């Protein structure tokens, strides 16, 4: 087993890793940049080492000082958290070369899943559904027609050189195809000087739904159900929940099985996530990518399954077998997480720095707070804006939503603007209550607000 774990990260995830390690009886080493000397994770680590100046490239991304810190403190394992070095196969290999256990999957799995094209090809081979479409540039209208009939309408035609919606046409049925094809080709030629277009299935009412998986070094892989992460602002998740309010039990089971198949196909031996895009109309789902790390939103899965994902991730990295079989993993109730960022929703979510002159976290039943800050802490201007994750559990989704409203109302942060008021709006929005919200929810409600202000 691991005796001493170096945490190569900062903020709330460094605190989370320290918590898991302590509960496993493992000593912890924190590493910090000069800007993080007063951070909570430094206070909570058994031991800590300054590894460089504030810039990421000179501290949290600088292998040499991190590995030297591990060696000189006698650490025998490194947890990379998320971001930073978490999905860096070379770093994982460097750890191996120094006999340090890297808490993550084998480097080959990181490499295979790290390249989108490779990942998509491998998944197709493994029988995992990906968004259907032309392999490359469409040769002709006839080819488009054959393919569209095969995939099923609606489809979308896009310029291969394109972006920003130019050279793009959504095609609702076969009658629209000819006009749309020619219009897209002409527009692509005009806009990009390249008339190449491709065709793929158009996803209606899209949702971002991901499956948590966990594998060990003995070939076992299980899934721990899904998370619905469709509430995003510019691809940044703001709120995640489990279970997804729209999945049928049949779809949930199918997604879980497919995710396990996907993970098995790369001999996945750690905690990871298979991301799918889900079509709210057809109820089909398609592989998008795999994240070969623990994720920010892992607590919602922990709340409904009672499983400590961080502890399992560490234990399987140390060579232990998964303690539970698939059928022993049960879920209960509903969990929702809000990411409380130091950002001003009134000013385009501008990141804020400042000192937390007051910081009162919510408590009571069904409330979990994973925070990297504390009262009086000065937020350094060098890193990301995540202050805390507020996670609630309730027996039903309605219970969880009411609890989340109450907990958000209790969360008092003074000294910097935060996303709390924005989350308060989300959780009181009728569309959120219905649960069928799609990935453009935040964009739409932000637009509503602008429209209402005019």
């Amino acid at each position, binding site marked *: 087993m691991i005796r001493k774990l170096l945490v190569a990260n900062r903020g709330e995830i460094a605190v989370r890793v320290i918590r898991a390690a302590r509960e496993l009886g493992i000593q912890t080493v924190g590493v910090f940049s*000069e*800007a993080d*000397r007063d951070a909570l994770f430094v206070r909570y680590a058994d031991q*800590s*080492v*300054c*590894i*460089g*100046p*504030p*810039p990421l*490239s*000179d*501290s949290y991304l600088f292998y*040499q*000082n*991190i*590995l*030297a*810190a591990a*060696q*000189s*403190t006698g650490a025998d394992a490194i947890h990379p958290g998320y971001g930073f070095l978490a999905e860096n196969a070379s770093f994982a290999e460097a750890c191996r070369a*120094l006999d340090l256990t890297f808490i993550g999957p084998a480097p080959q799995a990181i490499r295979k899943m790290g390249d989108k094209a490779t990942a998509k090809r491998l998944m197709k081979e493994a029988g995992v559904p990906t968004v259907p479409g032309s392999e490359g540039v469409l040769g002709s209208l006839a080819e488009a027609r054959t393919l569209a009939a095969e995939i099923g309408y609606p489809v979308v035609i896009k310029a291969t050189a394109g972006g920003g919606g130019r050279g793009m046409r959504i095609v609702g049925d076969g009658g629209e195809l000819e006009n749309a094809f020619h219009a897209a080709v002409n527009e692509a030629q005009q806009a990009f000087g390249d008339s190449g277009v491709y065709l793929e299935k158009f996803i209606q009412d899209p949702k971002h739904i991901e499956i948590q998986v966990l594998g060990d070094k003995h070939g076992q892989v299980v899934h721990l159900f899904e998370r619905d992460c469709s509430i995003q602002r510019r691809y940044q998740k703001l709120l995640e929940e489990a279970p997804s309010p729209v999945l049928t039990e049949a779809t949930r089971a199918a997604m879980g099985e497919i995710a396990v198949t996907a993970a098995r196909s790369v001999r996945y031996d750690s905690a990871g996530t298979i991301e799918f895009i889900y079509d709210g109309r057809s109820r089909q789902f398609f592989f998008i990518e795999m994240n070969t790390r623990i994720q920010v939103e892992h607590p919602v899965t922990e709340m409904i399954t009672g499983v400590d994902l961080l502890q399992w991730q560490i234990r399987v990295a140390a060579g232990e077998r998964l303690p539970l079989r698939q059928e022993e993993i049960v879920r209960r109730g509903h969990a929702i997480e809000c990411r409380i960022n130091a950002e*001003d929703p009134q*000013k385009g979510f*501008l*990141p*804020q*720095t*400042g000192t937390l002159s007051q910081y009162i976290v919510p408590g009571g039943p069904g409330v979990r707070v994973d925070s990297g800050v504390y009262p009086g802490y000065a937020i*350094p*201007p*060098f890193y990301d804006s995540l202050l805390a994750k507020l996670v609630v559990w309730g027996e039903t989704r309605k219970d969880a939503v009411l609890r989340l409203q109450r907990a958000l109302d209790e969360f008092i942060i003074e*000294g*910097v*603007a935060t996303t709390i008021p924005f989350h308060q709006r989300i959780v009181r929005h009728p569309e959120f209550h219905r649960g069928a919200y799609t990935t453009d929810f935040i964009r739409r409600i932000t637009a509503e607000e602008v429209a209402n202000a005019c």
Partner: protein
Amino acid sequence: MKGKNMDVQKLLEWLKKYDLTELTIKDGGYQVTLKREGQPAAFPHQSLPGIDEAVAAADGTCEPVASAAEPEDAPDKPELHEVKAPLVGTFYRAPAPDAAPFIEEGDRVEVNDKLCIVEAMKIMNEIESPVRGIVREICARNGATVEFGQVLFRIEEPS
């Protein structure tokens, strides 16, 4: 931007705290440039708008956790040059376990004289003196882990 969240005073403090020699902030397009002891470091994703421009320079010190109890700028002492660890590793006072230390307290050193070794990743990094003077203090223990920026020696330069 709220004045209370990021004012010039605060920026000046950061400058001092992180040994920055230059800091540029622009509002339009959210550009931040920080310079530190000649090494440029850009943070394109960081946005700190609201102050039109702030350019300042300061010369601060980095005080490691492990040496919080050490006297610093005591009024009865002459100005001492601090030699800090440029990397994380294990501090050795001698080139080999059975060899004599490179230097002792009270020794005279010239520029580029070897002071110690910091071992990291099996590589022995020799640390040389950046100044001429008398070694007044050896601040790390042989075999100890030293962290980035930790003071290793204090050298009195001839006045």
